[in-house]
């Protein structure tokens, strides 16, 4: 069972310069089905339980970045996703906050706990993106930030005495908010995704989807999907990283039918049919955020949190980070970047 062209590409690039290819993190192998006649119960499957206990104790990091023009509901959506006020909305009308002149990167961390599992969630906001008259290269600060996180991780890794658990500030997932014009993508959307789909997992999301009727939504999604395909933009889940047939069919369905998710966010609750639901109240009805006939928020939530969270982290670590690392090693002549700083770190670690 091979992982496809990615591994061989990396190996080819690195075998010329680095003698041994890195070991990929261990992934439990799927049973091959040959020796299924076990004479007794050994207990190998308890490893899953051990891993679970470990994860619960250590907790895990998740870093999500939101990118899009101001006013598209980014903060509200993140708050709705994690059912807590993890992102401060810039729509608090009392503040005199103006649109920043350049793109700023603001990372805010929270610890959320659920069912005994602790998650250190960091939400990275990018105010000022796409809001100026001249938006040329406004993605550069974002690209720089992402690469800086990879650099930080790399420096920790090549340390002689390194920490047991390297703090992971790398961006695992980037939600890109598309304005629901109903027509097509904007040139800025294309440029951004072209540049960044190679360094980070991008999940395109159609914001404020309550603007569109069902037909308009389907048409718009089709057009956006086609545009992304024509321009060679690989959003997450990328086709080339599907591990086996099972993944492929599941991801194909998501890629070709559901994505980009058309979402509506809200942190207000209303009474509908005797239940309290999150929604938006308008003179002509209440839009329920978690109702699949109204919008696809529930699909996005399940996708990002309930099914693909670990995969997002893995793809970031195994693919995007490795690509960055290979590039850095290549630039450095095949040697890990040993700088004076690393020695200082080494001393401070003692």
């Amino acid at each position, binding site marked *: 069972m091979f992982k496809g062209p990615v591994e061989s590409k990396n190996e080819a690039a690195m075998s010329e310069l680095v003698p041994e290819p890195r070991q990929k993190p261990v992934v439990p192998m799927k049973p091959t089905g040959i020796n299924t006649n076990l004479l007794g119960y050994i207990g190998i499957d308890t490893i899953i339980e051990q891993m679970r206990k470990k994860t619960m104790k250590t907790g895990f990091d998740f870093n999500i970045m939101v990118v899009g023009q101001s006013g598209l509901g980014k903060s509200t959506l993140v708050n709705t996703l994690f059912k807590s006020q993890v992102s401060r909305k810039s729509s608090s009308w009392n503040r005199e906050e103006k649109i920043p002149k350049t793109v700023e990167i603001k990372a805010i961390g929270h610890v959320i706990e659920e069912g005994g599992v602790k998650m250190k969630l960091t939400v990275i906001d990018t105010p000022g993106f796409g809001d100026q008259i001249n938006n040329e290269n406004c993605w550069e600060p974002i690209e720089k930030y992402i690469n800086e996180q990879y650099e930080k991780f790399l420096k920790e890794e090549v340390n002689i005495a390194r920490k047991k658990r390297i703090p992971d500030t790398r961006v695992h997932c980037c939600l890109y908010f598309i304005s629901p014009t109903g027509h097509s*993508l904007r040139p800025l959307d294309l440029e951004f995704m072209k540049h960044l789909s190679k360094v980070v997992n991008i999940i395109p999301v159609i914001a404020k989807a309550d603007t569109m009727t069902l037909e308009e939504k389907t048409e718009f999604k089709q057009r956006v999907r086609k545009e992304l395909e024509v321009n060679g933009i690989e959003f997450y889940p990328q086709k080339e990283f599907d591990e086996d047939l099972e993944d492929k069919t599941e991801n194909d369905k998501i890629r070709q039918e559901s994505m980009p998710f058309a979402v509506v966010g809200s942190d207000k609750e209303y009474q509908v049919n005797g239940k309290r639901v999150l929604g938006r109240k308008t003179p002509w009805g209440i839009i329920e955020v978690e109702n699949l006939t109204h919008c696809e928020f529930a699909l996005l939530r399940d996708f990002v949190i309930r099914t693909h969270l670990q995969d997002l982290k893995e793809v970031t670590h195994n693919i995007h980070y490795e690509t960055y690392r290979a590039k850095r090693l290549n630039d450095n002549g095949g040697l890990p970047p040993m700088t004076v700083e690393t020695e200082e770190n080494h001393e401070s670690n003692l």
Partner: protein
Amino acid sequence: MSKQQPAQFTNPETPGYVGFANLPNQVHRKSVKKGFEFTLMVVGESGLGKSTLINSLFLTDLYPERIIPGAAEKIERTVQIEASTVEIEERGVKLRLTVVDTPGYGDAINCRDCFKTIISYIDEQFERYLHDESGLNRRHIIDNRVHCCFYFISPFGHGLKPLDVEFMKAIHNKVNIVPVIAKADTLSLKERERLKKRILDEIEEHGIKIYHLPDAESDEDEDFKEQTRLLKASIPFCVVGSNQLIEAKGKKVRGRLYPWGVVEVENPEHNDFLKLRTMLITHMQDLQEVTQDLHYENFRSERLKRGGRKIEDEEVNKDQILLEKEAELRRMQEMIARMQAQMQMQRQAGEGDGGAVHGHHV
């Protein structure tokens, strides 16, 4: 006062009645025959609902074979000006309506040059009218000047964007601006109020002059005064456009059908569409007047002050001045070089060690 004669000339009710009170009716009849001309410009980013709103306002389909370009094509495109004219007739009154669309506005990554095309279009129309007005044959002057500009503000933002502010400041002295927020079904009522207030505050903060509805005359009836008050209080208008007929509450209305309800275009509780339409219709005459008396006159006096010299002449003059200055600079540099050479020779002749370099640079 005889009632037996079928009077051809209305008999005066009181002696001394001349009859020129009939003049407005004559004017009315003549203008109805002549028809009205109105040019409306719509400006705003793609996808804000401009075309749908225009079609809804005038109950027509102004863009029958429309192809919406993809993002990759939009990267290459610059702002275009597309004018479509439609003749609408209602109860014998003809209106020749020209809608000037500006596709490509706000689409590019760098929108620095977005409004140059639009401003030169507006100026061109003024220029043409000025030329016709000063010409010999003035019977059939066609008025293509832009009487009103609907500027579309995105309902998704938190107020005005930098581009909105810059554009409105550039044209508020040339055309009547009516700010409009389309796709208003994105917003709840509270959000709408907040957005309207925020926009009005920002407009005042930046000193943008939008079109102000004239107050009702004191001799108008109360209903009209009340209506004008309501209209003034609702600017900018939050509208929803649609030409689709939906079945709601037993009757067919124009609206948008969502899984959670129906938005009715002509329901004043749902959006300000009716108010916008009323404003446009009742103030069409006023919009034309302000264009003529204020914007056109401004343009005209500026133009004539420049003495008929067009803008290109000024640029040519600038080039000439530049050339002259460059020649002067060259002359001075030559002079300095000569002086330096002289000093060098003097030094070499005098001291004999050529080590001292003064190193003065002009």
